């Protein structure tokens, strides 16, 4: 499926077990939204920490309250993301709300050292302003990695927990063998066409099946139904 590799964000990874899995890496747009959510959460945290320590310093004295506040600010600034990324969900609250998580390039859970590196290097990705360097780096790497991701060997992927499985559509057509032997890619194209056909209007389906006139020998509705018959035949592995 060569065409799919060019248009999809699916990244093939070969595991040690020899099987190939596909990770769906997340692009800069959705990651920016996730970052914005985290940023707002951080601001709220700063304010809450500030208020708490104003109250706490009534008992402990100004100096200790101020000290604790500085310590909290330090930890929040440098380690907010790390704590969440190495946690069970593998994602900061912002990333989680966008259905993303951080993983090693093989899809494995992110290690503590990896998470620390990728988050310490945020200061560089942020340069010269608003994560411009990170964005440019994302756009020039195949797996949308910013500089911190490159050094830590991590990717941000969709966590893919959506359970709504789409039942394969029922096709009402008479199974019929294609007139010529089809290559694997051609078979895949036909099968994907049927699976995706639900999303399209009839006019669009006909328009697309007209392209296959050399194969079906017909245009319009009859071309479409012959095409559907062939895919049915392929799905049933040649049985009636």
């Amino acid at each position, binding site marked *: 499926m060569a065409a799919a590799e060019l248009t999809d964000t699916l990244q093939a990874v070969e595991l040690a077990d020899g*099987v190939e899995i596909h990770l769906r890496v997340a692009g800069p747009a959705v990651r920016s939204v996730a970052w914005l959510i985290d940023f707002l959460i951080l601001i709220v945290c700063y304010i809450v920490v500030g208020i708490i320590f104003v109250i706490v310093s009534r008992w402990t004295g100004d100096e200790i309250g101020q000290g604790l506040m*500085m310590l909290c600010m330090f930890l929040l600034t440098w380690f907010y993301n790390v704590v969440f990324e190495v946690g069970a969900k593998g994602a900061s609250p912002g990333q989680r709300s966008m259905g993303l998580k951080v993983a090693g390039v093989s*899809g494995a859970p992110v290690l503590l050292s990896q998470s620390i590196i990728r988050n310490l290097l945020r*200061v560089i990705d942020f340069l010269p302003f608003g994560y411009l360097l990170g964005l440019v780096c994302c756009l020039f790497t195949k797996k949308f990695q910013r500089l911190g991701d*490159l050094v830590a060997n991590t990717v941000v992927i969709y966590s893919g927990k959506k359970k709504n499985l789409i039942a394969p559509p029922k096709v009402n057509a008479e199974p019929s063998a294609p007139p010529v032997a089809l290559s694997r890619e051609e*078979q895949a194209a036909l099968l994907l066409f049927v699976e995706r056909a639900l999303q399209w209007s009839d006019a669009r389906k006909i328009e697309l099946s007209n392209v296959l006139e050399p194969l079906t020998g017909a245009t319009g509705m009859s071309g479409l139904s012959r095409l559907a018959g062939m895919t049915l035949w392929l799905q049933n592995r040649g049985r009636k």
Partner: protein
Amino acid sequence: MNSAEFEQENQPRWQRLEEMIEGVEKGRAPENVEELPTLFRQTCHDLSIAQHRIFGMGLVERLNNLAIRGFRTLERRAGGGWESLFRMILVKFPKMVRAEWRLFWFCSFIFWGPFLAFAIWTPHDPEWAMSLLGPETMVSLETMYGEHTSPQDFIREEYGSDFMMFCHYINNNVGIDLRTFAGGLLGGVGALLILLFNGLQLGASTGYIHHACNPSTFYSFTSGHSAPELIGIVISGMAGMRLGLALLIPGLHDRKTALVLGGRKAMTLITGAVTMTFLAACIEGFWSAHPMEPWIKYTFGGVVWLITISYLALCGRRVADET
């Protein structure tokens, strides 16, 4: 076999794997958990078949997700926790500093060169240092270490101020370490600039104190924490340079691999540097400001320098390299 038959036949297995993974993710140990690797491998096999026979997007995606989750479950590590941290600090870190001795001397030179030049030159010709420090810094140096102060004065009087200063040093000095490390990714330039600037600033301060203040107040304050703090910043410069050099001179590897490998080394260095700076902040916060005879302070400082240097030079020598 078509897609539906395939699904029907293997469905129970996938469901069992899914339930098992869910159990493990929630922290329970499900029944027959020892079967998990086998189930995972079988499911991987099913995925390959489904991919090869083009069994439809829905099924392939479901199996793909299941394989990823299984892989993540099997790949979970309990982590070495404290043990690996101690091992890092006692063995890996000093070894790494010795292995990168060229970088160590290079970064030391970048930091100590301007430091010593300014510290020695300023008492003869304070103009340069004064314009670098600016009036505010000079005033604060004079209030802390001025001519009328003595090492026996309380530098901090209020209750809790030791703790506050400790937190301030953590926030400020560890922050500088981390920025130095990150700055190294810009081809080393960021790390070098921060090292150079800190060398200049501290050198100018030292020189200015010799020119206008009471040096014995200054030295009895700084002697205790100077060793871990100053060596800590040099080592965070090394960590930054490791990253920068991986980018500039990847050597045998391609640039991306070199960055990942360099990043691992740099991670060890910066962990050690941050630990040293943390210790320095403890000393600076809770010891350095207390009024004591200067000779006690100097002896303590000397011992800390000796410990720091022998730690870096000797620690972990007998432990064999990890392969």
